[in-house]
């Protein structure tokens, strides 16, 4: 499977993602500079975390107008797989590829720690290898993860199974106590209607090797490879 990791000025998780996709998952992976518009040959485009354009104006607001994003929109419309992690998620929101918007964490602090997230649906390409309500331990690192979405839109999203991950307790209970940033209904990740575009605040690429404290991120990568009919490396 061929992955493209987009680099915006200020991306800083691009190398981590490149390493996990290439070295841990043994897949074909290339960097895509944000001014490139050619995404031909890729099966999945990854928008990594970081601080694209210094988070000026709003997180992801300026990156949304990078030349590559027009191509990412077309790529997604044609059914290509797109995943945005952290700042990548924020960019997908600003681009309108996913519903909602991101605000400052309610505690006004940058939060960098492991959290537990619950898989809310196993009907997406990104979670088809998880079991129902599986809890994944994956780190977050953000200042703007307070996900907001108009009530009516959220109700429609829930009906369509677009809420993919929620912050929860280690025992999978979802409540305000386990909401790190104030996100509406503890939402940590959502997908589009078709399911081929995923955005999430936690960093699965930082939880893909036992040495880093968790391999739960592999559940997402493995689901994606399975969905795309790729033989999953035996190490996983």
């Amino acid at each position, binding site marked *: 499977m061929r992955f493209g990791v987009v680099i915006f000025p200020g991306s800083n998780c691009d190398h981590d993602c490149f390493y996990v996709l290439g070295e841990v998952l043994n897949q074909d992976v290339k960097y895509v500079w944000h001014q490139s518009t050619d995404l031909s040959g890729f099966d999945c485009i990854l928008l990594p975390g970081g601080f694209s354009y210094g988070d000026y104006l709003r997180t992801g607001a300026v990156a949304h107008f990078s030349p590559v994003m027009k191509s990412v929109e077309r790529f997604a419309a044609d059914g290509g797989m797109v995943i945005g992690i952290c700042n990548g998620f924020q960019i997908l929101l600003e681009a309108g590829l996913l519903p909602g918007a991101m605000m400052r964490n309610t*505690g006004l602090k940058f939060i960098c720690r492991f959290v537990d997230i619950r898989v809310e649906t196993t009907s997406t390409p990104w979670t088809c290898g998880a079991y129902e309500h599986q809890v994944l331990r994956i780190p977050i690192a953000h200042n703007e993860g307070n996900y907001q979405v108009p009530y009516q839109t959220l109700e429609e999203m829930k009906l369509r199974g677009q809420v993919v991950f929620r912050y929860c307790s280690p025992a999978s209970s979802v409540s305000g106590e386990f909401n790190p940033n104030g996100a509406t209904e503890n939402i940590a990740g959502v997908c589009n209607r078709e399911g081929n575009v995923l955005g999430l605040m936690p960093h699965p690429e930082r939880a893909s090797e036992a040495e880093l404290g968790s391999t739960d991120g592999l559940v997402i990568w493995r689901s994606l490879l399975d969905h795309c009919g790729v033989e999953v490396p035996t190490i996983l």
Partner: protein
Amino acid sequence: MARARVYITYKEGILDPQGKTILRALKSLGYDEVENLRVGKYMELELAGTDKEGLEKRLGEMCEKLLANPIIEDYDLEVDV
């Protein structure tokens, strides 16, 4: 040349964590009369042209496309030609 001002505020009903924190700080200084406070953004622009209506329309587009996020923010604009 025209001068324009854009005010961006959070929509009603959107919780403003910064505003709440500043409100608490004011209260702790003894300014008990402050009942609510919301933080927004203020921008000044210099625009070429003298067609006030046309410039307002263009600036409105800029707000919709980039300067504000219509999901969580409202905007107000003023153009002086």
